[in-house]
């Protein structure tokens, strides 16, 4: 049982950090499909900088910086150039996936995996089975709670939600939606960068090209499934991670009878199930509001 909790937490935490970035963007009124790109950028910068400097702190800082820069770019394109957020987000994702591929080839001359000498510090053997949990996993509940407080108990958070729900009303009380969205995206950039770094530096300390494999999109789905609520999105991400863990476990138990490719499909199927449930419970994109998403 403890093994299960530890494994699920380790799988879910990168997604949870990225989902928190998604929650901030969603509240501010931006569908952030660039999360996948931010995540892979964080994962790549984290490992590469740790490998180059030998310091995890530098790796984490680099992950955050690059992810924030990309977030600022996304804000510029969506707010200032008035691009469609969905397509621009997918473009940013492409930029992250291609850019990390290019960076790895530029620095190491091949597409192979990059290994960092050290990872994010863990609790250590003193904590028994929980010793595998690292600093970012331990900090995760605090971050989620802090985000909840920020969104629901501060002036800034309430204004942010107003910007997403009714920009006109927000403007009438003196909030500038464009600026609030910038703050939300930059703060999200920090969280998404940390999520990406946790994915690569937290586990095997390896970065390989395309390693996020849709986890950023799953984090986005967790935001939808969790109704853009920090705690809801966290549980959604935990659910996706649980499904992934059960698939791996099934393979260990049943071996050949659980075909590998179908087991790997499970998290994606769970994601579809999640947003379908969410649409059934809370109403999805109504058929008559297609033009709303034009941003």
């Amino acid at each position, binding site marked *: 049982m403890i093994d299960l909790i530890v494994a699920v937490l380790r799988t879910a935490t990168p997604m949870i950090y990225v989902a928190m970035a998604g929650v901030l963007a969603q509240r501010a009124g931006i*569908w952030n*499909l660039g999360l996948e790109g931010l995540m892979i950028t964080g994962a790549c910068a984290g490992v590469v900088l740790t490998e180059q400097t030998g310091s995890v702190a530098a790796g984490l800082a680099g992950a955050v910086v690059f992810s924030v820069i990309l977030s600022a*770019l*996304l804000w510029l*394109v969506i707010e*200032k*150039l*008035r*691009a*469609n957020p*969905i*397509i*621009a987000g*997918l*473009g*940013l*994702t*492409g*930029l992250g*996936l*291609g*850019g990390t*591929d*290019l*960076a790895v*080839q*530029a*620095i190491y001359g091949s597409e192979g995996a990059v290994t960092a000498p050290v990872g994010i510090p863990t609790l250590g053997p003193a904590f028994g089975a929980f010793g595998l949990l690292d600093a970012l996993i331990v900090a995760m509940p605090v971050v989620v709670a802090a985000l909840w407080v920020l969104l629901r108990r501060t002036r800034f958070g309430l204004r942010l939600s107003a910007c997403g729900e009714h920009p006109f009303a927000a403007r009438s009380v003196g909030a500038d939606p464009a600026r609030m969205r910038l703050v939300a995206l930059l703060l999200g950039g920090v969280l998404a960068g940390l999520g990406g770094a946790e994915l690569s530096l937290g586990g095997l300390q390896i970065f390989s090209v395309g390693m996020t*494999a*849709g986890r950023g*999109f799953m984090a*986005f*789905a967790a935001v*939808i499934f969790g109704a853009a609520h920090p705690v809801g999105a966290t549980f959604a991400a935990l659910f996706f991670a649980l499904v992934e863990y059960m698939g791996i476990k099934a393979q260990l138990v049943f071996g050949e009878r659980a*075909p590998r*490719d*179908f087991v*790997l*499909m499970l998290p*994606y*199927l769970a*994601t*579809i199930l999640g*947003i*379908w449930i969410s*649409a*059934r419970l809370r*109403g*999805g*994109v*109504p*058929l*008559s*509001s*297609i*033009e709303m*998403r034009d941003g």
Partner: protein
Amino acid sequence: MRARLLTVGRAIAFVALALVLCGAIFEAAGFSAPDMFSAIIDGAFLSDGALVHDLRWACPLFVSATGVVIAFRCGYFNVGTQGQFYLGGIGAAVAVAALRGVPDVLVMVAAIILGIVFGALWAFWPGWLRIRSGTDEVITTLMGNFIAGLLLVWVTSGPLKDPSGSGQVTASRPVPIGVRISTDTGVSPIIIGLTVAVGVLVWVLVNRTAFGVLGGLAGRNPVMVTWQGARLSRLGLGAFMLSGGTAGLAGAMEVLGPDGRLVSGFSPAHGFTAVLIALVANLSVSGSVIVALFFGGLASASLYLPVIAGLPSAAIDMVNAAIALFITSRAWPTRLPWLRARR
């Protein structure tokens, strides 16, 4: 006419902006941007046989892009082209494997039809979920791409595996010569004919039929279309399946044409590029022809770069992604003062 010129100018401006961003990133990554771009242009348009390669990639891309035009015009963001394309390839390969001892021409036709059907079915379920319960199609179709990719791995390493294949890349048995619709060059009368036929049919559908006109309206103002008595759900589901069907056809074309077998993970950038073509062409079928030739060139350059120029092919992914980032911008240049003054 002026409006159309403006659209073209806008598209070119944003593609140029995207190239500038890419150049900056290439420089930051330690590559020389001029070298990179000249290698890309060489690979795309100037090297020996570049134009044939260009056409080889442009044909399936154009076919998929017409499907994206249909779905996006109706207001549905079907970004699952990649998955529908893979399912089309699987459909064609299944038909070829199942119909042994049947005349080649029949197998060819059956494979193309099964490819279209598989692609359409892979677009059916996100469409159904979207229309019945409002489940966001962007996420479902994206997840569908990942699932289709894994399905392709399973098919090529399981049921349709070529036992004599090498361990590196799993693939199906080669398609018999008589069933192929082109040689490895990928340019043949059948492929060109199919591409032109799809282009003409979709152009007529979009511009000259009730479906196309209502769909275009539905994308902008679904409430009005409902009030006019059109069945929005039927329209939407039709758009999804047509869009999946064209992507499926493109997949079948790859398998029966230049690839000549079903390879695990073939053309990984196809879907994203097809969506881009439709967007750069501002969702116009005729515009997609020219844009597809441009992106076909880029696609062939992504094979040229690592082999001939020794540069990473990820550069092409970057160019595509940067174009996607900017292409839907609506703020500029319509806000340029000289334009505003004349309106």
